[in-house]
């Protein structure tokens, strides 16, 4: 029972939540002490996707606008950060934030047609945007063309002032990305508790009603696109350094779909949900389904099926099949995603004997 506005907007609703959050943070900060390099890489990837999924959820889950073009913003962030550092010798943080702002500017531009579009029309417009970015980057020599580019060393010092501090290992990057991720997630959580966030939710529930009660649709719809693109830009900039190398075709339509899947699987309109979705989908994509034939329990079975009816070389496509089935199943059986399951479990145990 909330009695007061500040109770509604505070970050930790109760002592229990504060305790578990702190424990979880300590756990995260000590992971590099006992995990192998491969898992640190996987965690870096997961955190990058968490930033993106949280940003995308602000747009899709909270504001109710569909985007199939987030790979475009992601690409702008990745290329922007790497190129600003390589050609203008900007410090890492300046380049990262600057390219995120460039992405946000593109988000604003894409938000303008979105003012008049909804549903399938918006889907096709954003999809067109994503593909356009991919093709433009692929054609332009400045961006390395089809060959892609290698990211410069991740130098978080000031290269101009002869003070450089290069994060070369996965572990070094881990702490930086972790801090950025925590900051971005808390920022998103707080944005959603302000007037801006509440306006987003009002627009999702009914844009006409929101306009009637005085929400400026033009401002807040474009703002939702910009914020979401900003998150995607930050995530893209970090992604480039985690991977070390990328080409334009990394940022294809399938990637946009995977981003959307993260949000939908995690739970629309919930920040813990988008974190869970990003973790699950990234784990499936980069670890479990990477080598299908070595999967526990069903790997051998799948190889047998492949020999019998399909081709063994095509077995890697099982990844895509699994993802497709997850997408369909989550909409049919649990439209609220992982967060919905969590809520149900919580309710069940809160009222347990009954």
């Amino acid at each position, binding site marked *: 029972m909330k009695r007061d506005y500040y109770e509604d907007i505070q970050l930790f609703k109760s002592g229990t939540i504060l305790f578990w959050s702190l424990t979880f943070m300590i756990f995260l900060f000590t992971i590099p002490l006992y995990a192998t390099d491969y898992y640190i890489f996987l965690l870096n990837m997961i955190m990058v996707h968490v930033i993106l999924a949280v940003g995308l959820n602000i747009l*899709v889950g909270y504001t109710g606008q*569909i985007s199939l073009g987030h790979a475009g913003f992601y690409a702008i962030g990745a290329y922007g950060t790497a190129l600003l550092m390589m050609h203008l010798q900007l410090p890492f943080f300046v380049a990262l934030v600057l390219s995120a702002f460039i992405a946000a500017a593109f988000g604003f531009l894409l938000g*303008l*047609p979105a003012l*008049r*579009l*909804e*549903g*399938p*029309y918006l*889907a*096709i*417009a954003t*999809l*067109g*945007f994503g*593909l*356009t970015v991919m*093709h*433009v980057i692929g*054609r332009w020599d400045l961006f390395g063309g089809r060959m892609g580019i290698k990211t410069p060393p991740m130098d978080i010092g000031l290269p101009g002032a002869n003070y450089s501090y290069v994060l070369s290992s996965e572990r070094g990057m881990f702490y930086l990305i972790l801090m950025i991720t925590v900051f971005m997630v808390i920022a998103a959580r707080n944005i959603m508790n302000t007037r801006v966030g509440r306006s987003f939710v009002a627009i999702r529930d*009914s844009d*006409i*009603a929101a306009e009637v009660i005085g929400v400026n649709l033009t401002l807040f719809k474009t703002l939702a696109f910009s914020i979401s693109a900003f998150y995607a830009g930050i995530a893209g900039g970090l992604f480039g350094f985690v991977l070390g190398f990328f080409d334009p075709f990394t940022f294809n*339509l*399938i990637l946009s*779909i995977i981003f*959307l*899947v993260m949000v*939908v699987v995690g739970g*629309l309109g919930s920040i813990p949900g988008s974190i869970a979705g990003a973790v699950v989908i990234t784990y499936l994509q980069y670890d479990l389904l990477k080598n299908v034939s070595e999967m526990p329990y069903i790997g051998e079975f799948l190889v047998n099926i*492949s020999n019998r*009816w*399909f*081709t063994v*070389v*095509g*077995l*890697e*496509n*099982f*990844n*895509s*099949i*699994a*993802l*497709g*089935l*997850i*997408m*369909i199943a*989550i*909409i*049919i059986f649990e*439209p609220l995603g992982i967060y919905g399951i969590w809520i149900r479990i919580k309710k069940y145990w809160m009222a347990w004997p009954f």
Partner: protein
Amino acid sequence: MFGQLIIEGLAIGACYGLFGIAVVMIYKTSEVVNFSQGEMAMVSTFIAYHILTYYHCPFWFAFIMTMVFAVLLGIVIEFAFLRPAKNPSTLGLIVITLGAEMLLMGIAGWKWGAEQKEFELPVSYQMTHEPIEGVVISDWAIGIFISAAFIMVVLYFFFKYTKLGVAMRATQQNQNAAKIMGIRVERVFSFAWGFSSLIGAVAAMFFASRATLDPNFMMEPFMRAFAAAVLGGLMSIPGVILGGGLMGLIENFFGYFWPEWKPIVAFVIIILVLCIRPSGLFAKHYLKKV
């Protein structure tokens, strides 16, 4: 030169239009944008390829088998994936069809591998005629014009005079009223999906014989066809044919002058058109009632 560009543009435009009809057919009846349309057609084309290459059957037999398969595929996808969803939102429907797309793409990649294959129609792209000086028209173009015209005429009479066609129009206008009048809406949806899958498979065969056959080959044509359908307003069948023709012409002319930007011209046009006319060029814009 211009005549040549126009013929080529119209031919590929007719292909987009034909595939766009498949998209419109589903959207008109059930208000689902089917993102898996391209992949449904791709799998059907692979079936034709499989029958032709491994069993060496004559083309007409492979064609009939493919059409039967396409209809069944459409019905199965509607029945298995869309029907169980309870009151899905627009986003939910888009995610389901995107999921079906990934699923079909994965199955095709698993079965036939990712390498590009040749697919040949009896109407070849290489066989050309020159009816007027300087204007070359290929058998392929003639084939697509005839198929598109035939399907248009069939659809016109189907929607106008048959019981099922009228039922489909009624379902589109008001689902609940249609139910009250004794129309089994679910069956209408199944039929729409089957029919649309069939039309898509025909168009995909033309696309495959012009380019190559691989599990990704329908992605770009699907985008263009969808863009053409959006140009035409996503609701009217003459609109989508006009939109397809327009799209083919613009793309061909643009590709002639600036070939490096050909892949994106369709999307730039789409975004611009949607900015000016949010419901497409040839559709009336209905304001949402609260």
